[in-house]
């Protein structure tokens, strides 16, 4: 991976996707508010993520970045505003001038197109690595187990864990577990991948192996939103860096702009602490 790619020249792959780029964004977040009890966590957030782009969200803890990510696949319900992914509203269906809340079954179906990787991996400890990856495509998408198993083995190979298929999650290191979790999310062939601080629970020496997997996915043109504290990763991989503070997006733009020449005082203060 050479120096940060300049979109004009090196971006041949995504240039083919100009049609998609001008079309509706993959993720469209509009005026989203969310409170937990009396605590307002999101205070009106707007965000667009275009197909094939990598968006990295930075911000101090408690700034609402994880909550924002969780609203995108409806793990949290928004109080106001709306979110659409790949052209369809998340959690609701429009009919005439009314929005109908979706049934749980329909929400679950929507989620199969959005992969989510958790900070604490949340692998199923009683299932083998292979079964962890196979479970959702078989039960949620009703795909034949045999095909899914073959695909799962290929995915495990891609994240460098082909030899761990029959191990249980507890027998793996944190970095290996997170790579399995990524393979598990990819098994559904999602249109969008969401990463919620994927390396925050890892020992420092294991962070690199997980970030490498995410980088490869990014370079293959997977649309993804990554909440992280890894500034170096943001600089190298992000198309857009979003800085959040106190439930709002303070500023966003190309990594070079936001990270090296932040316009906002709060962004500067945050970066001076983490860099």
């Amino acid at each position, binding site marked *: 991976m050479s120096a940060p790619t300049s979109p004009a020249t090196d971006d041949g792959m995504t240039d083919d996707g100009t049609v998609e780029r001008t079309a509706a964004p993959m993720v469209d977040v509009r005026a989203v508010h969310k409170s937990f009890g009396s605590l307002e966590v999101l205070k009106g957030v707007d965000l667009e993520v275009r197909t094939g782009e990598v968006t990295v969200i930075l911000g101090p803890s408690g700034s609402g970045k994880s909550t924002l990510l969780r609203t995108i696949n409806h793990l949290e319900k928004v109080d106001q505003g709306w979110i659409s992914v790949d052209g369809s509203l998340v959690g609701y269906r429009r009919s005439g001038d009314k929005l109908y809340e979706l049934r749980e079954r329909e929400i*679950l179906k929507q989620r*199969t197109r959005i992969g989510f990787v958790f900070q604490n991996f*949340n692998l199923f400890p009683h299932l083998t690595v292979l079964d962890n990856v196979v*479970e959702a495509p078989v039960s*949620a998408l009703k795909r034949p187990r045999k095909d899914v198993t073959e695909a799962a083995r290929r995915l495990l190979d891609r994240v460098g864990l082909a030899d761990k298929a029959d191990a*249980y999650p*507890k027998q793996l290191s944190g970095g290996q577990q997170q790579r399995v979790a990524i393979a598990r999310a990819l098994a559904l062939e999602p249109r969008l991948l969401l990463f919620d601080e994927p390396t925050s629970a890892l020992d420092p020496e294991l962070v690199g192996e997980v970030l490498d997997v995410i980088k490869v996915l990014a370079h293959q043109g997977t649309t993804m939103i990554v909440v992280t504290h890894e500034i170096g990763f943001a600089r190298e991989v992000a198309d857009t860096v979003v800085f959040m503070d106190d439930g709002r997006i303070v500023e966003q733009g190309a990594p070079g702009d936001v990270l090296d020449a932040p316009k906002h005082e709060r962004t500067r203060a945050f970066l001076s602490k983490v860099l």
Partner: protein
Amino acid sequence: MSLTSDPPIVKAPAEPEDYGALKVVPVRHPWRWAAVIVTAVLLAQFAHGLATNPGWEWEVFAEFFTAEVILKAVWVTLQLTAYGTALGFALGIVLAFMRLSDSPFLKAVSFAYIWAFRSIPLIVQLLFWFNLAYLYKELKFGIPFGPGFFTFDTMGLVGAMSAAVLGLALHQAAYAAEIVRGGVLAVDSGQLEAAAALGIPRLRQIRRIVLPQAMRSILPNAANEVISLFKGTSIVSVMAIGELFYQVQVIYGRNGRVVPLLMVATAWYILLTTALSILQHYVERHFAKGSTR
């Protein structure tokens, strides 16, 4: 501050010593040995008493231990335990998920059930069921408050045996519900969240992801319950059902050999509880998959 006139011990600061070549003397535990001896003597006295006291009447014990009437009674006891456990835990699982649901009504009903059946002594409840026919002469299946399709004579349907099973199962369900609920609550909430994020259907989330993990904390408590139900079946002797304890009472009522016949019951209870404990060990091992490194 040395008061003795011994010359100060001056160690040569020479080379480090090789402690590996020295003999190691383990610490002694004289009081532990004393306790062992006292305990052993008491045990020996007890065993001697069992063997030599004619009051135990071991020949009577041997005569009845495998007598047909006793074996039949053991079978009834096992049936009561099996039905009580199966129905009790089936209803218990339903009650547990009612109480874990988001519906305030279902929660309240489940709570009320558990409250009621934990409050009523089992023996009182059993006698109620036994006298059900006094309250309801016939049982009807059909449209609620409307016409019925099938009608049963309560006396015929709820015989002593089914009244006992019903009572044991309903009683057991209240405890089983709390054990299952505890097990489900012990599963990390991240597990359900991950399953939901993957779009796994709701029932499948429970059957495939939550319950197998909940089983780890459910099993030890559930085994306790099964064993206590197994011994608790002796309570239905008040309903003149021919289970182990009732049959033993009948026999010693006739021949007066109280002690050896109580020993017959005791030996069977111990034997079968041991079998259940062994079964528990293997079931727990099955559900411990993936829990070790």
